[in-house]
């Protein structure tokens, strides 16, 4: 961001996040939610909008909405309503979307996020339930509806439950927006209500962005930006849009209220539709549905069953397990808390286990395009590895190799060590023989050490390690060499 932004203008950003729920069935019918099916196989009269079909609310989706609402500190409405949002589009089976309008299920929460400038509280306006649309495939050179030769529609996604989380316009920078989205995603994952994959569209984020001179109370004209499919592109889009708006204002132009499309490759936004082209959705209460009225006993039962939330986990890892704050954040962000707790329960020191999780295990997973939490190593195996290093059986270098074997499914750390004969040589007698042999072979280097060149000892240690095929305990080798040459 240009320095002008920070000194002269302030950005005002509100975020609208859609999350596709992992419920067993769709929002208003009993079709299974099962990704990857042949087009139009996960459908029924209800989600195809066949004449005469009627919606019935999915209780599991309501429970997910309540979970997220409670996690965000929202008030759960004693009764909420579904409205119809009317507009024509081929991938919307009824040509209206069932959504919540002025009486949503969750109201008024907040989300705390960590930024480089400290903790920031972002207000949550509301969380509401709605149904997803189908997917259009436009066949032709453009890949968009205009200019397509023909279009195909797949209704498997139609009717999948969505939660929309609307923030207050409290976000002030791309960094804060990224931190908000990251934290919201962590909460959704911790609650287990969605796989929340931005790249695959099971989590989507739109940003409402305006700028104003620093210190001005009124908001500027806002622009909605869509189509950011990663945390990184959200940040890039916001930075671009803020700069674009500042340039316009500086050039004396007026910012128009519109919806803009983020072009990932070009790194720019472009007009999608202006305010004048905006549809009048003619919202009205859906007469096919009755009010959603969760009783307080059910809400309390859901509250009691909430898992540890990311913020709580970070605090515990820092205060109770002694992890540095940033390390705690990474473990939580990568959803490795369960693995860490398991390793600690099996006797590992938390900082060491966290070290392995964050560096080696995460690195291994990322290289393979996996989520770190999907890495196939248990906390018990991790604890075993930490113990093998701790008692001197394995050098760090060998421990890395053992871990790779574990991740490749070759067994437990102890089993692999035994099978490969990797125990570190800590037997003084065995080491002394190798040390003497190396001193004899590398007389020049040995002499330089004797002459007071301390650095020269490194070459001798390396030679001993090589001769022992990496199994020698480096600390002991160092000690033995010093005793022989300097003692």
């Amino acid at each position, binding site marked *: 961001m240009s320095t002008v932004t920070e000194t002269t203008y302030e950005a005002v950003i509100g975020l609208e996040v859609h999350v596709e729920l992992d419920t067993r069935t769709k929002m208003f019918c009993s079709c299974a939610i099962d990704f990857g099916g042949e087009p139009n196989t996960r459908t029924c*009269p209800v989600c195809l909008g066949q004449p005469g079909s009627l919606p019935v609310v999915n209780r599991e989706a309501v429970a997910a909405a309540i979970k997220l609402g409670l996690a965000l500190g929202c008030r759960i409405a004693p009764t909420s309503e579904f409205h119809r949002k009317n507009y*024509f589009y081929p991938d919307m089976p009824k040509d209206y979307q069932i959504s919540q309008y002025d009486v949503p299920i969750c109201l008024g929460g907040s989300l705390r996020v960590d930024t480089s400038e400290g903790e920031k509280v972002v207000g949550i306006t509301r969380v509401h339930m709605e149904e997803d649309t189908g997917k259009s495939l436009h066949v032709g050179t453009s890949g968009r509806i205009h200019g397509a030769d023909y279009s195909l529609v797949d209704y498997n996604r139609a009717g999948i439950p969505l939660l929309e989380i609307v923030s207050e316009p409290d976000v002030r920078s791309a960094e804060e927006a990224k931190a908000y989205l990251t934290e919201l995603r962590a909460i959704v994952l911790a609650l287990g209500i969605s796989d929340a994959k931005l790249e695959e569209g099971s989590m989507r984020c739109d940003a409402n962005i305006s700028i104003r001179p620093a210190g001005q109370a009124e908001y500027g004209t806002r622009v909605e930006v869509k189509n950011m499919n990663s945390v990184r592109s959200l940040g890039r889009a916001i930075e671009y849009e803020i700069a674009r708006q500042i340039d316009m204002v500086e050039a004396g132009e007026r910012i128009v209220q519109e919806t803009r499309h983020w072009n990932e490759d070009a790194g720019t936004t472009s007009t999608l539709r202006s305010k004048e082209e905006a549809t009048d959705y003619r919202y009205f209460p859906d007469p096919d549905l009755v009010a959603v009225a969760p009783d307080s006993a059910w809400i309390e039962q859901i509250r009691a069953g909430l898992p540890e939330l990311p913020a709580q986990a970070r605090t515990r890892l820092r205060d109770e397990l002694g992890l540095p704050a940033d390390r705690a954040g990474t473990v939580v962000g990568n959803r490795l808390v369960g693995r860490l707790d398991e390793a600690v329960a099996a006797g590992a020191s938390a900082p060491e286990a966290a070290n392995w999780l964050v560096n080696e295990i995460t690195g291994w997973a990322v290289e393979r395009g996996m989520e770190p939490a999907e890495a196939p190593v248990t906390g018990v195996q991790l604890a075993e590895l930490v113990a093998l290093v701790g008692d001197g059986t394995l050098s760090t270098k060998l421990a890395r190799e053992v871990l790779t074997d574990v991740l490749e499914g070759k067994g437990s750390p102890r089993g692999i060590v035994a099978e490969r004969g990797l125990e570190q040589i800590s037997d003084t007698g065995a080491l002394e023989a190798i040390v003497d042999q190396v001193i004899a072979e590398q007389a020049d280097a040995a002499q330089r050490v004797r002459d007071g060149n301390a650095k020269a000892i490194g070459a001798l240690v390396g030679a001993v390690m090589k001769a022992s095929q990496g199994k020698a305990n480096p600390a002991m080798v160092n000690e033995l060499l010093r005793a022989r040459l300097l003692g």
Partner: protein
Amino acid sequence: MSELVTRTAAELRDLLAAGEVSAREVAQAHLDRIRATDGRVKAFLKVLDEQALAHAGDVDRRRAAGEPLGPLAGVPLALKDILATKGIETTCATRILETYRPPYDATVVKRLRQADVVVLGKTNMDEFAMGSSTENSAFSKTYNPWDLARVPGGSSGGSSAAVAAFDAPLGIGTDTGGSIRQPAAFCGIVGVKPTYGLVSRFGLIAFASSLDQVGPFARSVTDAALLLDAIAGHDPADSTSIPEAKPDFLAGIDKGVQGLRVGVVREFMAEGMEPGVRARVDEAVARLEKLGATVVDVSLPHASYGVAAYYLIAPSEASSNLSRYDGVRYGLRVPGETAEEMMANTRAAGFGPEVKRRIMIGTYALSAGYYDAYYAQAQRVRTLIIRDFAEAYAQCDVLVGPTTPSTAFTVGEKVDDPLAMYLNDVYTIPSNLAGAPALSLPIGLDEHHLPVGLQVMAPVLGEPAMFRVARALEADLAFDPTPRGANALETPGGAAA
């Protein structure tokens, strides 16, 4: 012509149970009657000869084998073409669904099958149930068996004409603002609009979701109650379905009106009614008093705003309900250069003028800036009418009044005057707005030999009292449902009128 077609459903049920007649014979007699008369009445859009005879044959086989049968096993029925029948054209009398065959059965259709009712065919109606004369059907007009130059009423005019013509003892209609009661009144039969939520709407092609309700037609009150009993009851597929057990419609039906308080709605008796209608209604009220009912004068002060509120709420819901007919997934498709153009061309060609009129009214009423003045205001009127009814029912058990201001009008008479057509529903609409049950009972003829209907209204789930009052009056008046008069359809079974 077999005299079997003159029998009531209850009589046929008993004859069938006693083995005096087979279900196939009953079905064949009615199919023969349809073949002989429907060229002039045009009640049916599709006659399901093969399916009906096969189902009847199956009922006979199961009866012979001593297998369990439904409560109306072998009794024929005419089904309004607005209820989804799996694999069988369900057109809603609209071009846009002319070739539509649903992939599923409506809950009501399933329940009819469970009752072993034999569906003879699917009947004509106003397009998407929008109309009061069945003249808005995209396919054909239907004619009133009492005078073939007159309309049977609407929108369920096909089912009411079929029952009046002795094509079937039972019919199914739907009622959004009077679409069962008004055609029942015009055709001299019994028609019931049940409590909203009593009968599942799943598979009922929606016109106005908060008002639509499925109900029975019959030539006797008891038959209507029997059919309602077969189709009513909670359906988890309809969120607006009433979860409680359905009332017992039949237990007290013959108990008479002794001790019941009957309210006469003052506003409905005031003006606008034809003299012939007023005379019969006055007589019926006098009879009820003679039979032991306490007659009280009650007021529904906001009922007169019902038509205005209805013609905002119903079109608003319809404008949204009918959006799905876009040519993308089923039904008519008229090509266009773009998806948008294809949708517009399809809807322009597929909907008739009355449907387009209501879509436009509803779209306008819901649009930004007008919502509060129209839709929200209409909903407030609805609340006032519900309150009016609650106050009236503090003084009485049922309410009575005319079903319609006039008897059947002639074909073409009101087709160019939508407002005159809308006013047909002035007495029937308040019950739809209140979600309460109401029934039309034939109580006599006017000076043109046309039937007059008395509307009996009851509070929500008050069907037992409603049936009881109607049954007592029916027994007392002994109205003959056989169409008669100079231009009437010929009498079935050769019996003299």
